[in-house]
């Protein structure tokens, strides 16, 4: 949704195909939660950080799935990357919501959560931002949709769905599922 808001000014998202239903989306979240716990040997030292604004509900969903699977609360925070973007001054960039990192990140395993991975620039900004909160032991990336078209050497660790798209298409992620469409 971060993607939608940024590119959406003055134009309307017209949905074409639903690629994941709400139930599909939930199943993907649960799977990713399990993968996160498996990869990190539990939840010890794990901090989920949802990227504002699209990644935040997904991070909450993963945290909920982890609580049910592991019986414990995972630390969770939110991050707005507006101040770290590389396109400041090139187009309107405004902070979209609060940044709230629950603890110092030095030594932690941080899992960044976002809805759609596209050019990779938001994730680059997020990596920069995270480094200002301490030196994490590892940073991993969880995205609901990887739609390709990377402009930076960034790859996700956990993917809900790989979804080949055209550049001019839009991907919308909400609690109702994932839809491909265009801006008109």
């Amino acid at each position, binding site marked *: 949704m971060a993607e939608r808001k940024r590119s959406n000014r003055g134009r309307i998202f017209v949905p074409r195909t639903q690629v994941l239903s709400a139930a599909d989306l939930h199943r993907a979240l649960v799977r990713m939660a399990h993968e996160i716990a498996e990869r990190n040997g539990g939840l010890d030292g794990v901090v989920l950080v949802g990227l504002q604004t699209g990644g935040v509900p997904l991070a909450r969903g993963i945290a909920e799935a982890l609580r049910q699977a592991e019986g414990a609360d995972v630390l969770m925070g939110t991050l*707005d990357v*507006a*101040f*770290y973007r590389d396109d*400041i*001054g090139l187009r*309107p*960039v*405004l*902070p979209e919501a*609060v*940044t*709230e*990192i629950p603890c*110092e990140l030095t030594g932690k395993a941080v899992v960044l959560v976002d809805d759609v991975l596209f050019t990779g620039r938001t994730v680059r900004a997020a990596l*920069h*931002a995270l480094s*200002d*909160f*301490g030196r994490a032991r590892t940073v991993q990336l969880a995205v609901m949709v990887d739609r390709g078209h990377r402009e930076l050497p960034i790859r996700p660790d956990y993917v809900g769905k790989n979804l080949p798209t055209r550049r001019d298409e839009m991907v919308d992620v909400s609690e109702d599922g994932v839809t491909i469409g265009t801006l008109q």
Partner: protein
Amino acid sequence: MTHLLSVSDLGRDGIEEVLRVAEAFAEVGTRPIRKVPTLRGKAIATLFFEDSTRTRLSFETAAKRLSADVLSFSVGASSVKKGESVRDTVETIEAMGMDALVVRHPSAGVPVQVSRWVRRCKVVNGGDGWHEHPTQALLDCFTVRQVRGEIEGLRVLVVGDVLHSRVARSQVLAYDALGASVTLVAPGSLLPASLEGWPVEVTDDLDAALPKADVVSLLRLQAERGAGMFVPTLREYTARFGLTARRARLLDPDAVVTHPGPMIRGVEIASDVADLPQAVVTRQVTNGVAVRMAVLFLLLGGAM
């Protein structure tokens, strides 16, 4: 927004936007590393033709936290005597590749004039004569909103030397735009000659006004304007318009007391009152950095 010369350049939406963005920057101020790369490569000059340590430090801290390069130009009385005009100074500084100029000047309107002289620089009014000090009013609103949650509907007293106060002019515009009601509390000799068009009420009875106030903005009595001409003595001024310990007891417990600094303890505010929980003076200073970061960000990198 091309420049920030007056609070009236912003309007309600603009003020709300500055305050919203300032919240994000206030959070930056709580991080272990209180600096973001947002304005990397931008250059900001502070041009202060009048001494002001705190406003200058606040702007420069804001610029540095945004990773901008800061050039600090202060004009002592001697340079003015050398005869270089403000215009030449501005053109010289801009030619060094500045992206924004923060201008403070003892004469009203100089930032407005500077905005006509620059080619592409953004101009921020850092306080001009008796005219305006927009970032001060914005940080006051930010602080009050932080404490009270909302500004709409609050009753604000602006107390003291309104005549010579740029802060008062900006506050009246800002509080009014955000839906507060403003009452000026001052003797006639410290009020502007005409309040035509000002959305304010006026009284000289601080005791009567105080219990109903949600916000009390104390203005600095410009001591150099001094006793004798505008008020008989400092003692009489304090007796009638100072926030004394006795008067502080009239304050609502939830009221917010602001002061633009530097405070003259014992004149406009009693020493022990300055340390009351209602007084938010240090919080204002902290928030000043976040608000000025927001202003610089919106001018140089933001959505405008």
